[in-house]
């Protein structure tokens, strides 16, 4: 199943939860959650697929103040497998409660650092054997990284102030490659035309897509044309 780009979902808070649901479905996860901190705008955002009962308990007990999947994971540059947090007393406190609500303590949090001190954390959990989890991990982790930056960039740029700061700038190489895509050339062709490796083309396209908050290359081309970074065809 392909994940629907956030901007094409209806413009309300529900779309973030819907996006998280799609992530769960694609990667066979039980639940997903996003927490974002944006100090420039002074805002905190949170979207989850958990049941209301747990959300209420989590808020009432002030678990957000101690939750290590937020406070510790944000200090890592790599995804944090929750097994790394297990020994912390705060983890045991939060997940003892979570267990009573039928939530697993097996999961991963992906920290994303933005340019203005903003931080986004995408978490996903799944109740399964450790072996199965490890096997799945290798397959989903790269895609979850891309999903994490996608939801984070969308949340941050939906704020008026940071949205204005967040306008994408492409390097001339990125614009050049995107321009060739708009002209209908394949990645292989573009590599040959510019005398660069296939992987260099790929890495620049990946960067352009993420800068333009697009999940697919055609979408990135559309946006780049719309904001005048490249010309049509």
């Amino acid at each position: 199943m392909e994940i629907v780009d956030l901007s094409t979902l209806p413009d309300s808070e529900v779309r973030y939860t819907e996006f998280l649901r799609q992530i769960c479905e694609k990667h066979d996860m039980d639940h997903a959650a996003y927490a974002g901190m944006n100090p420039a705008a002074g805002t905190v955002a949170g979207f989850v697929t958990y049941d209301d009962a747990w959300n209420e308990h989590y808020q009432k007990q002030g678990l957000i103040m101690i939750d290590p999947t937020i406070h510790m994971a944000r200090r890592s540059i790599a995804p944090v497998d929750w097994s790394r947090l297990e020994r912390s007393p705060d983890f045991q406190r939060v997940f003892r409660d979570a267990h009573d609500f039928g939530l697993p303590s097996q999961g991963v949090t992906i920290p994303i650092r933005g340019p203005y001190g903003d931080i986004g954390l995408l978490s996903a959990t799944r109740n399964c054997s450790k072996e199965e989890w490890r096997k799945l991990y290798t397959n989903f982790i790269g895609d979850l990284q891309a999903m994490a930056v996608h939801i984070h960039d969308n949340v941050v740029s939906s704020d008026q102030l940071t949205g204005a700061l967040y306008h994408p700038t492409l390097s001339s190489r990125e614009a050049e490659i995107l321009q060739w895509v708009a002209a209908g050339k394949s990645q292989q062709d573009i590599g040959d035309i510019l005398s660069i490796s296939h992987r260099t083309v790929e890495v620049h396209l990946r960067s352009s897509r993420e800068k333009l908050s697009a999940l697919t290359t055609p979408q990135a081309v559309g946006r780049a044309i719309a904001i005048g970074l490249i010309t049509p065809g």
Partner: protein
Amino acid sequence: MIIVVDGLNRHMFSEVLDEMFELRARVFGGRLGWDVKIEDGKEIDEFDHLDPAYVIGLDDGGNVVAAVRALQTTGPHMLSDVFSAILCGEAPLRSATMWESTRFCVDTQRLTRGKEKNSVSYATCELMIGSLEYAKNAGIQDIITVIDPVMDRVLKRSNCAPYDYVGETVPMGKVSALAALLDCTDERISGLREFAGIHENVFMDDEEALALFAAKKAATQSPANQDHKPLTELEKYFVEQMSAARNEAERQDVLKLIEALSDTFTPEQKIALLDTPRAFAHEA
């Protein structure tokens, strides 16, 4: 062996980090003559305060022999902020699946020539393998690395040639600097492993590393009870408490208890107990 130190475990490895910052001062401030800030013999910049990840190479004695620093390209990093000359003012690449690696250094004084263990070549390859595997396991697909032309040649010679470069080679200190692209694929890692003859796991976990440092301390510092009789029952008790302490608060409690019972110990014994809990624990 390789350890990874980041914002989650750096409180356990502050001495290792200090040793690494000293190595960086010798390499970047001294040998390469870069314009870096050195204080107290350590090279530390603003990016070190942003919780980067350090991949650190250790020799069998637990000394830092190689190190590199990784940051996400989605947030503040060197190419977006201080190395913009390399990119000729162009916007840097930004991707959740690309990390930037900087401050790659190897201790050429401590290490030997050739390709054997404890050689510059071995330590370089081991650090490269560690960095690429750490990145790959995190779902990272590419690394953009800021290096000097010597390091670029080393990469090419080690079966690990960059697949491309971004921007220009610009003068920096006594040398120059450039930005190279490396993929974190199994092909690259196995090529590097083949070249270096390193087939085993290169990583050490936190516990193993702490044990190695305790052993190193015990060997370099004089044992805590050097001039004393064998350990008394009370000393043994403290050693046990100290090694059983699970966190800083519990360690502090043991130290307080030692203080409270200071009449029982000679001043030397007390200082030894307070100063070298780990070495002492290892002794016991």
